[in-house]
């Protein structure tokens, strides 16, 4: 924000956060207000900084898994997935068929969890205090029960391993997943009947926080936020990593790129995720759930010594492109480990979206970006 704005007598500079319920964590915004209109906005982050990258560089490769859970702590499964892909690329490990299916099932369930929470808390920010959020959290709990059953933990799952996953899925667990997922379309219909055509929601969200296409691409926005602006870019479709090329699903797109589009794209994505999980459960083959070659690594992680080189693995996490950059020097510890965090980079355009809007809208715009501070600050 320029000096001239600050020096004008009518403007007022205020701080949101870091301890403010609407920032969903320890995020801080410095806003310059003219009446209720935002004239400038800067973000201040780092309150949750723990130098995740340095911690990882002092660990063994398999040891990093548990720390990736803490990045985006709402969907640890997806964080594990990205890291596993990057490290497998680095070391040239193959993944058995059944493990790929289990991974996709878990990743898509995590996507549903993430979007449910996002929509619930977005409505909270709008003032619908906890009524829609509780419905969303109720469904989320059922999925977290599955995570607990499968991996032993509800949120910090630490379920993926190099070359597969930690435990196999039993027939019972598959049946349970099928049961939970089959409820979701009806729930989403009900949820949408409550929300999508709600007058207040429409008035507060439509034409607020618009993001033009070219700016979205240039600023490296990814995930549902990019697709709400009308750009068809989904890493599941372009990179076809893991086995996503086998499933039939659509990529929902928005038109205007406003908050309403971002909300609605996520609702539609949940429906597509349900389809993917159903197809994966129907097609899951029998067989190994972990590459037998990687078994010694579970006992002794220091045996994992990829040849010197580098790899960049990326996935479509619910928030956008989650990338891991790994450099190996042939020792059991990574020489360089970098996380390309979607939560951080999607914040690049926060100021552009907020300037000219009312202060109450800034809260909604921030909510619709979908950040998790564990990932932003690292």
């Amino acid at each position: 924000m320029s000096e001239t704005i600050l020096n004008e007598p009518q403007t007022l500079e205020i701080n949101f956060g870091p301890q403010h319920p609407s920032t969903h964590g320890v995020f801080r915004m410095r806003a310059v207000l003219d009446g209720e209109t935002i004239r400038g906005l800067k973000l201040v982050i780092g309150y949750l900084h723990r130098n995740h990258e340095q911690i990882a560089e002092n660990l063994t490769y398999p040891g990093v898994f548990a720390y990736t859970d803490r990045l985006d702590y709402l969907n640890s499964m997806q964080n594990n997935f990205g890291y596993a892909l990057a490290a497998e690329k680095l070391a040239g490990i193959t993944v058995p068929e059944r493990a790929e299916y289990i991974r996709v099932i878990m990743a898509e369930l995590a996507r549903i969890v993430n979007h449910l929470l996002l929509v619930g808390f977005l409505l909270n920010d709008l003032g619908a205090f906890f009524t829609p959020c509780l419905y969303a959290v109720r469904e989320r709990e059922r999925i977290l029960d599955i995570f607990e059953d499968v991996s032993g933990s509800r949120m910090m799952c630490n379920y993926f391993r190099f070359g597969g996953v930690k435990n196999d899925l039993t027939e019972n667990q598959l049946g349970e997943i099928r049961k939970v997922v089959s409820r979701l379309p009806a729930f989403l219909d009900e949820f949408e009947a409550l929300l999508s055509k709600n007058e207040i929601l429409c008035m507060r969200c439509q034409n607020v926080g618009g993001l033009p296409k070219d700016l979205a691409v240039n600023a490296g926005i990814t995930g549902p936020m990019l697709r709400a602006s009308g750009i068809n870019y989904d890493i599941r479709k372009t990179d076809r990593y893991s086995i996503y090329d086998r499933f039939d699903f659509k990529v929902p797109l928005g038109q205007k790129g406003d908050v309403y589009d971002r909300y609605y794209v996520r609702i539609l994505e949940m429906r597509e995720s349900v389809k993917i999980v159903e197809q994966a459960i129907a097609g899951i083959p029998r067989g190994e759930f972990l590459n037998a070659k990687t078994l010694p690594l579970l006992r002794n992680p220091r045996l994992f010594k990829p040849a010197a080189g580098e790899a960049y693995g990326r996935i479509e996490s619910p928030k956008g492109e989650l990338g891991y950059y790994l450099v190996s020097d042939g020792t059991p510890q990574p020489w360089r480990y970098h996380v390309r965090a979607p939560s951080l980079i999607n914040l690049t355009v926060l100021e552009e979206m907020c300037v000219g809007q009312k202060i109450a809208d800034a809260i909604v715009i921030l909510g619709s970006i979908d950040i998790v501070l564990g990932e932003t600050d690292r």
Partner: protein
Amino acid sequence: MDTQISEVKTQLETGLPDVKLRTIGNSILLENPEDLVRAAFFLKEAPAFRLDYLSSITAADYLDYLESVYHLYSMEKKTGPIVLRVRVKREAPRVPSLVPVYRSADLQEREAYDTFGIVYEGHPDLRRLFLWEGFEGYPLRKDYRQEDTDVLEIADIEWLEKHGVNVPEKFKTQARELAAAGKRALSEKPAQPRN
């Protein structure tokens, strides 16, 4: 080396003949960091590539030099990645900023500056991102040493001695130094709000 990288290399060599480059594995190293903005702009506009999306900026420390790595993708053509890298000296490292070409470089260059101390020249607002202004050192460089936090304080030593524990002289000196450093820091730098 895959085909796309070699294609990019030949196109860059014909389009920008004075840019010196060579390939390392599956990436392109620009010998002179000053060429970075021109090369990135060329790749962004070239109709054959249209690399319009800068996914990730990473810095890395290789002891002899620092490196800045760029992963470029094309959203229009759905291709990528093309990896560009530049190398700079450890002392006073300077790399031109890519913010004029890609807005997505904004926060990522601040992050690399914060953790590696690479100065991105031309960045509109190059400040530390995660750590506070006034933090000394760049924590992801390999020669960074964290200060020793395993030091007993004076009160601890008093308590231990009162209970009959014989505390070595080394710990007492450390405790005195720690207390003195704390007082010095308080007198020199009054607490200021971050911005």
